[in-house]
């Protein structure tokens, strides 16, 4: 077995206690009726989440392990650009696993390369909807200007105008 850090052990311990964690995440991302959420790259196991239920032995069944990360923020209307950088890792293989099947065979150190993603989002939020959860919308704003109606004299179409229209 690979040696685990204390952080990864703590995260695994949390993950075991969080049975059904994908259910609130699915509702916040996909069925949020309080704020307009734009969910990007939703994992399939979150979108298709169903309660695994209880096994025949009476114990709760194991849910899917968590392998994704999330970030959420309130964004003002406009164009937003993100860079997501996943740092590379060097995984040290124990000496007793040096003769294990690939990819661990014959190696002591496996390097996972860094990855870089970019994403551009255009937020076109309607300012007329009062959403108290969004801080920048709670400020007082001047009322919009009203434009008076424009009246023009009605003129019947001539036969020539009707022929052109058809």
């Amino acid at each position, binding site marked *: 077995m690979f040696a685990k850090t204390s952080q990864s052990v703590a995260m695994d311990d949390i993950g075991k206690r969080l049975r059904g*964690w994908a259910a609130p995440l699915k509702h916040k991302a996909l069925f949020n009726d309080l704020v307009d959420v734009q969910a990007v*790259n939703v994992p399939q196991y*979150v979108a298709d989440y169903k309660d695994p239920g209880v096994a025949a032995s009476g114990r709760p069944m194991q849910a899917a392990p*968590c392998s994704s990360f*999330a*970030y959420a923020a309130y964004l003002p209307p406009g164009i937003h650009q*993100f860079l*997501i950088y996943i740092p590379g890792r*060097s995984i040290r293989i124990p000496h007793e696993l040096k003769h294990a099947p690939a990819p661990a065979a014959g190696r002591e150190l496996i390097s996972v390369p860094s990855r870089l993603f970019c994403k551009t989002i255009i937020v076109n939020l309607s300012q007329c909807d009062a959403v108290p959860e969004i801080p920048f919308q709670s400020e007082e704003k001047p009322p919009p200007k009203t434009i008076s109606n424009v009246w023009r004299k009605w003129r019947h179409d001539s036969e020539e105008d009707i022929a052109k229209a058809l």
Partner: protein
Amino acid sequence: MIFVDKRADNSDLEEITDPSIIAQVSSNLNFGADADDYAPVICGSIINGGFKRKLKMLRSDLFSLLSVCKSDAIITEWKQ
């Protein structure tokens, strides 16, 4: 809300595969060659500092816990 899976293709995101660009972004974000940070880092217009500041993403199960939990053992001060 943005999700990233470190092992998946992340079809909604555009991956930059040019190693020189990746190395340049890594140096701009002040990551050394021996950095062993597990969580992905996000930067851009979501932060006031733009592409100079960086934030770590949370694992989805912990994110889900913090978004619904009011326990004083986890949250001791209301920020917003």
